[in-house]
């Protein structure tokens, strides 16, 4: 008996449409985030993360509308990240029905934004998204720094110190993505995950690199993550959320079933 480790499918959404193609065999509209969120909900996902990659200002209203539609049909926690830059952005998403918001580059540009957001809305809804990349050379003890702009722009900020600072500023959770592993299907950067998880008292979601179920289990057992996030292995129907939970449960990991 105890708290379950969470499995979180992530949807990338552009102008109200899911991109990076979700491929459920029998889904009516594979581009509709509401349909997909409902499907994941039924499959036993513990939360859903919705990453808004909409560039245009007008598109942001579409996002708010999509969040409203998901929240009125899916009764599990919903996190919305991407493009959250102001207290007003957060208010809009929470009012639309999001339970948490993910703050990424806005935190790097202005660390006090996280503090303001947490003071205003409570730490429980503030997820700080950290994109980290290894900067130590081969043979050196490993070190990671924060990168912005999809991993292209270095900031010189140490990832572990940054996580601790964000925690002190009132983050309720950390979504940690290894930019070295993202999209590779080689598994999480377990050493990074563990370094961050051990350094902060708040929950850490591991992200970036999942290619199979063993990777998910490793994120929890070796990375000490509290939750694991994945996109493509679920979207392309390689594995279901149910299979992932069964696999983890067989390895002694507590999951919700």
């Amino acid at each position, binding site marked *: *008996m*105890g*708290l*379950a*480790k*969470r499995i979180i499918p992530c949807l990338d959404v552009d102008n109200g449409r899911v991109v990076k193609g979700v491929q459920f065999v029998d889904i009516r509209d594979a581009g509709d985030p509401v349909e997909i969120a409902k499907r994941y*909900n039924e499959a036993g996902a*513990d939360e859903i993360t919705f990453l808004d990659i909409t560039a245009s200002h007008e598109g942001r209203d579409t996002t708010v509308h999509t969040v*409203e539609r998901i*929240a*009125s*049909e899916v*009764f*599990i*926690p919903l996190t919305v990240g991407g493009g959250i830059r102001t207290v007003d952005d957060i208010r809009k998403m*929470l*009012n*639309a*029905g*999001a*339970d948490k918001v993910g703050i990424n580059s806005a935190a790097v540009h202005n660390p006090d934004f996280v503090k303001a957001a947490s003071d205003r*809305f*409570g*730490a*429980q*809804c503030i997820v700080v998204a950290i994109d980290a990349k290894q900067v130590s050379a081969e043979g050196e003890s490993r070190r990671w720094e924060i990168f912005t702009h999809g991993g292209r722009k270095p900031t010189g900020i140490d990832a572990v110190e940054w996580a601790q600072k964000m925690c002190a500023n009132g983050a*309720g*959770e950390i979504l940690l993505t290894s930019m070295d592993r993202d999209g590779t299907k080689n598994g999480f950067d377990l050493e990074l995950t563990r370094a961050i998880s051990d350094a902060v*008292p*708040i*929950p*850490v979601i591991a992200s970036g690199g999942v290619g199979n179920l063993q990777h998910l289990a490793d994120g929890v057992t070796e990375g000490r993550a*509290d*939750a694991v996030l994945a996109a493509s292995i679920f979207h392309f129907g390689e594995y279901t959320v149910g299979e992932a939970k069964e696999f983890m449960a067989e390895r002694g990991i507590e999951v*919700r079933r």
Partner: protein
Amino acid sequence: MTESVAVIDYGMGNLHSVASALGKVCDHEIHVTSDPAVVAAADRVIFPGVGAIGDCMGEIRRLGFDALLREQVASGKPVLGICVGMQALLTHSQESGGTDCIDLFPGEVKFFGHDHKSPEGEPLKVPHMGWNQVDQVDHPLWADIPQNSRFYFVHSFYVEDTGSEVTGRCEYGVRFAAALGRNNLFAVQFHPEKSHTAGLQLLHNFVRWNGQR
């Protein structure tokens, strides 16, 4: 006449999810409201809450909702507190530098601590965030929910597991009250509106409950 449920809005957080979850489980009129007259006229009352207890209690007192809530409970209509809405019903909370609460349930709301650990000494993250099992004590609001079902929690402060009014227990380093009940008043630490099937069933039970054990 259609029955009605009032969800008390005192400006602390999003009530959209509570309202849509209620809409999913009944045809009652649902009023998300800060109007005391609407609350008083409703057949059932939900008292939610998120954020820091100091801010919540400040708003509750400013709007006179502590007295309103006491009246609603005294009237005998079913009342459900959720999350910080449960904590606000206790006597006092350690949060926000120590906060006096509404005192409908005796007891103290405590912090899990910065160095929270399991009995085996494993570090535990705070907030307690995610799906945990609830050991139910016989009550009509648990009808058709399997014993030890998981509900979604997110909180850093907890209500102590003391007293005969604990109607559900959860473990996270310590054993704490996941639910409290007395007569027509029920309160839960978790978010039923975010707890999928089990949570919707609890709301389904609440909107059909006559307020008796």
